């Protein structure tokens, strides 16, 4: 890996200032960034560590909204997001214990890997991504594989999740990588149901709106039995064909709804 300058500020303002340098990049848990730097797919001149900023770590809940700091590790969300059990369960299934101790929600959402777990929770919950500069609705934030609404040097400082009446995440694991081969997050709110799918589409995380309409009218696995998922834009690789993934979307949505009961 190429060398770089390492800085570890203790406030968001200092981090934002340090990120103004050309080729500077934030470092959170490093669970994605370090492997890509080893492969020289990424070569920042400066890494600005976010792990020394106390304000960015923690889980709190008030007024029906669960807030998670941008540099909060998956293990902390798994242990402390009890007010949103489906989110805590999702965090507890990411990777393995060592990955969960380092990897963070902000890193996962900034990276927007097409097979990552958190993007589905953020989109299905209609979460708000909070940065040092603004608040971004999840519906506007995800812009395709590895692409987000974040500007250069913008830091995710937190994520606000409206807590649903019921929710469940079904992850069909790719056993070698432990990422989602396909994952579906279903969240039921007073004003309707949201369904977000990860791991399946070439465009990254997406909402399955037909299922949302059917489930908002009748929240039962039968409600989606007549629907089909088009396989045109689905990922096809050695782990599963596009048609296989399209079928998984429907099967996992049914299982998630059943698990909400």
């Amino acid at each position, binding site marked *: 890996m190429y060398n770089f300058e*390492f800085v570890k500020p203790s406030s968001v303002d200092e981090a934002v200032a340090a990120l103004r340098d050309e080729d500077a990049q934030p470092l959170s848990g490093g669970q994605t960034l370090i*492997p890509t730097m*080893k492969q020289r797919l990424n070569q920042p001149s400066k*890494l600005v560590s976010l792990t020394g900023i106390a304000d960015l770590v923690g889980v709190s809940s008030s007024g029906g909204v669960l807030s998670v700091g941008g540099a909060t590790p998956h293990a902390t969300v798994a242990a402390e997001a009890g007010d949103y059990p489906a989110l805590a369960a999702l965090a507890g299934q990411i990777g*393995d*214990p*060592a*990955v969960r*101790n*380092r990897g963070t929600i902000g890193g996962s959402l900034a990276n927007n890997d097409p097979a990552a777990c958190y993007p589905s929770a953020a989109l299905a919950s209609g979460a708000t991504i909070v940065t040092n500069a603004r608040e971004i609705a999840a519906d506007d934030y995800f812009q395709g594989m590895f692409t987000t609404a974040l500007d250069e040097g913008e830091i995710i400082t937190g994520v606000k999740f409206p807590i649903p009446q019921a929710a469940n995440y079904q992850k069909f694991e790719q056993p070698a990588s432990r990422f989602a081969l396909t994952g579906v997050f279903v969240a039921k709110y007073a004003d309707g149901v949201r369904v977000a799918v990860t791991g399946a589409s070439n465009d990254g995380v997406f909402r399955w709106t037909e299922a949302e309409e059917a489930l908002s009218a009748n929240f039962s696995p039968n409600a989606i039995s007549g629907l089909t998922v088009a396989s045109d834009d689905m990922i096809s690789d050695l782990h599963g064909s596009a048609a296989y993934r399209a079928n998984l979307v429907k099967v996992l949505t049914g299982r998630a709804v059943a698990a909400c009961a």
Partner: protein
Amino acid sequence: MKISLTVNGKTMSGEAEGRTLLSTFLREELGLTGTHIGCDTSQCGACTVHVNGKQVKSCTMFVAEADGADVSTIEGMANTDGSLGVIQQAFQDHHGLQCGFCTPGMVMAAASLLEKNPKPSEAEIRHHLEGNICRCTGYHNIVKAIMAASGQEVPAVAAE
């Protein structure tokens, strides 16, 4: 830059660059070669150590992130008189290793599990070891060793 760590209870320091990994620092700067590098891509868990009590893959953490931290490695798992610690002894008793390459990481992962969950079930042990790969044993004897180290009856495990 200068880095200081408390490793297995002793303060140690050395020189590092921004890109120096915790695993590299432990092995090359401090000479603690018990921490093994298997994949160097955060897949195998051979490099598992504890940083401030939490299990991490030392090949996927910059040592600068651990500056000032309390680090435990496999070298700290033996008893002070040099005899094998409880988990290490159980691995020996139950033939929980063959080539031994994965063993430092397995023992550190097991220690972290037993701290939180002193009497884990077989399923909990297997779940906790998801990030630790062993190419020799087929895992059964590792699971048995951890059962034994936690003072539980060693079960006949599935598929034997």
